[in-house]
């Protein structure tokens, strides 16, 4: 049976090409789990899954893991799914928030071939960006927004092109700040949670995940005999359905952009020139708080 497992794909991608290639998946929610599973089904056989959350009832409706996994860590539930399709895979699971243990994340990423960022927190994406740049490990970022009516996929290859902060700068995400009259309830302790949790259909999220999986595959196969043709630009915008605000005009709208590096980026191009005060001078002159 084992010999037949990859018969239908090995003429396109022989799974042996992935030997020794470790893929770290950060966030295995409704998007990340499909992303990881698609790669496992393409023959990738070494995963590290990171997610602090357990499957709760509201996750089930758009997660490949169903009611039988309710209450399990998402990493463990997705591990079972991966092994169910690719029994040769090595899957390590870690249930922690990457913002809580940056040092441990560094050790997990250090020997990785690729990181998949299925994160929904902006500080976490920026933290990962810096750590992966230092480790010189490529990262694929995928996100849905506007209720998963649209989404984006892009990659950061250290030393080549923009980093995550450059993308964020180019996309001018601050441009929409002052365009609403909706009041915020400052007394609502759940405000942050409500504002950072987004509704969306599983099928809309999965399309973005599949695009991300394909970009991951292209990245992993670069330089091998199974190398796939490249794609235009470095940023993919996908629209699932027409939107009233005009952002997406038709179903299944795909746009490729080339996002340039930000020449003044403080993260990937930190200023190397000397300033009048060195770090040691600054520390020596710090004023103690009275």
């Amino acid at each position: 049976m084992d010999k037949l497992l990859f018969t239908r794909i090995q003429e396109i991608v022989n799974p042996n090409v992935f030997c020794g290639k470790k893929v770290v998946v950060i966030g295995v929610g409704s998007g990340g789990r499909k992303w990881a599973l698609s790669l496992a089904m393409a023959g990738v056989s070494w995963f590290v899954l990171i997610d602090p959350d357990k499957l709760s009832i509201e996750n089930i409706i758009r997660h490949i893991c169903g009611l039988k996994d309710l209450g399990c860590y998402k990493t463990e539930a997705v591990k079972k799914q991966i092994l169910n399709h690719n029994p040769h895979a090595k899957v390590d699971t870690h249930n922690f928030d990457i913002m809580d243990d940056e040092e441990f994340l560094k050790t997990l990423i250090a020997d990785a071939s690729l990181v998949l960022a299925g994160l929904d927190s902006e500080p976490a994406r920026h933290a990962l960006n810096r750590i992966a740049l230092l480790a010189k490990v490529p990262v694929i970022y995928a996100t849905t927004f506007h209720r998963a009516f649209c989404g984006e996929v892009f990659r950061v290859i250290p030393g080549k092109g923009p980093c995550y902060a450059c993308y964020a700068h180019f996309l001018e995400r601050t441009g929409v700040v002052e365009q609403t009259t909706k009041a915020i309830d400052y007394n609502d302790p759940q405000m942050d949670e409500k504002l950072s949790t987004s509704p969306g259909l599983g099928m809309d999220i999965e399309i973005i995940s599949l695009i991300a999986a394909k970009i991951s595959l292209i990245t992993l196969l670069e330089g091998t005999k199974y190398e796939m043709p490249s794609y235009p630009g470095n940023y993919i915008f996908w629209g699932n359905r027409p939107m009233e605000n005009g952002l997406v005009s038709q179903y299944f709208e795909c746009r490729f952009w080339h996002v340039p590096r930000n020449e003044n980026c403080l993260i990937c191009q930190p200023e190397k020139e000397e300033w009048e005060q060195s770090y040691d001078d600054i520390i020596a002159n710090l004023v103690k708080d009275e």
Partner: protein
Amino acid sequence: MAWYDKDSDGKSRLVLECKAMKEVAKDFVLKIKSDGTLFWKGSITPVENCFILEIQYPANFPFDAPEVYVKSPKLPEDTPHLLDRPKQKLCLFHSGYAKKVGIYNPGKTTAATMLGHAINWLLCFEVWLVLKTWPIRESPTDDD
């Protein structure tokens, strides 16, 4: 270990933060709390009232934005757009929304940038003192 002492990136970022602050607010002084937290302290007079501000670096800077507090004067009880009323922490952008789409960008935002946002807040506050209306719109939510 503090963010600025962790590695070469943290050290060079602190140098850059100091350079940026000295360019726009050279009277602000960099101070350190007993737990190692760094903050800038200084005064600003956007219109006629003088405010003493603290711009504090969070533990996981630069991934989270520096926080700005009005240390004096004591603001009126009904002052809007405060995230922490007793500490008088300014709401400079929508934190939940920022986490989702990234209002704050560590690749281009320094304490000096936050000071600029704080001055905008103070200008709004001065208008609010007179008109009791906040003159700019609220940040959008994900449903917008």
